[in-house]
């Protein structure tokens, strides 16, 4: 089994995510800076995100992740971004227009159009992927990317938006798999193998 490394940007509670990722045969660790681990290139990086886009963007700079991750994904490395951790894989966000994303996917996050924001709750995924099709996922977000050529699942909230992306071994989920019941746990295990 490949080691799973949670990137801890100090932006919130990682208990549920660790709990969801933990399996008997799976080495799991949490690190704050890239130097804290001796990477072989075969690891699976998980990038959770809570809080504002700019906060995540700044922490990436401060802790040395921006350079590391840009290099990692350009070499075909395995990465799973969740919520703002998915958004940061795009170019930017209207939440903090000056903060830079990693730009691995083209596009920017826009504010959701529905009068009730943040979007909080469960929505059924519109996806052709067998492991997501018609499943209900738990969302907490005010911003999202409306579309992407790499989009693998969508939902509608005031407008249709992209809730999952994949290109090579880089996966992004706008919803919270770690809070999405058994479906979410199975999805995490699927993309972390």
């Amino acid at each position, binding site marked *: 089994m490949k080691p799973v490394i949670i990137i801890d940007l100090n932006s*919130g*509670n990682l*208990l*549920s995510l660790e*709990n*969801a990722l933990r399996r008997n045969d799976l080495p799991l660790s949490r690190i704050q800076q890239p130097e804290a681990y001796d990477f072989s290139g075969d690891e699976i990086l998980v990038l959770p995100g*809570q*809080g504002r886009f700019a906060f995540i963007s700044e922490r990436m700079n401060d802790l040395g992740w921006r350079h590391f991750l840009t290099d990692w994904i350009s070499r075909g490395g395995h990465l799973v971004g969740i919520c703002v951790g998915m958004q940061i894989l795009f170019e930017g966000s209207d939440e903090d227009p000056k903060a830079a994303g990693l730009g691995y996917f083209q596009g920017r996050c826009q504010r959701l*159009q*529905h*009068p*009730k*924001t*943040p*979007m*909080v*709750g*469960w*929505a*059924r995924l519109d996806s052709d992927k067998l492991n997501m099709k*018609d*499943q*209900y996922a*738990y*969302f*907490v977000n005010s911003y999202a990317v*409306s*579309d992407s050529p790499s989009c693998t699942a969508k*939902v*509608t*909230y*005031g*407008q*249709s938006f992209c809730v999952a992306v994949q290109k090579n071994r880089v996966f992004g989920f706008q919803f*919270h798999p*770690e*809070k*999405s*019941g*058994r*479906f*979410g*746990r199975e999805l995490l295990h699927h993309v972390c193998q």
Partner: protein
Amino acid sequence: MSVNKYVSDLTPRIIPCLDVAAGRVVKGTRFKQLVDMGDPVELALKYEQQGADELVFLDIKASVDKQPSALAMVTAVAMSLSIPFAVGGGIKTMDDVHRFFHAGADKVTLNTMAVSEPDLINQISRQYGSQSIVVAIDVNREADGELAIYTHGGSQKAALDYHQWVREVVDRGAGEILLTAMHKDGTGSGFDCELLAAFGTDYPVQIIASGGAREPKDFYDAIKAGADAVLAAGIFHRNEYSVTDIKDYLIKKNITMRTTL
């Protein structure tokens, strides 16, 4: 791309509420006469398996007795559940808030402290985001027909105007309002649909209806009146209906519910 600001794939949530006192789940009638209902983690898992969309734990004794809530219980729940949950009761300061989030809670619920120290709402919203703060409002329709706000587990009347208070908590950054109609709570006479309908479709935050559920139709009426989520305790704890029963009923009535494949 079509934009209709009201279209939404969100499903109305069914939220069992677990009132906790001294590490046990309890249920009172009109906020009094507490009856033991069981172990919080066991009940939480049972409700998750039944299809609960979220859980709320309220340490109702903490607000009255000024005791801190059991953080160990919160962590035990967080380690067992794979759906979101909110905790409330006993939160006095931002330090308490940090402890609850650190212990694994997804949201905190403020009631008495929201009234006595409303700036806490702003602070929590600023630091953790509005989605992490639920303000619980206990409203009672008084004998004269006026709506009054209560705190301290329903035992003290606050000097607040209901409509102004609702507006204020939203302005301060509450992400959701948990609206408990005390005059309905534990009576089994249904939710107060008139209060729910008054919020309207353009209302900027989600409304969780609470107080008065007796049968599946009460959930239907609350959702039809505009509730984004419906919270209930006794009918679940007493095994009168499971969450599955409620959802099956609502699905038959053409309300989209989250189901698990």
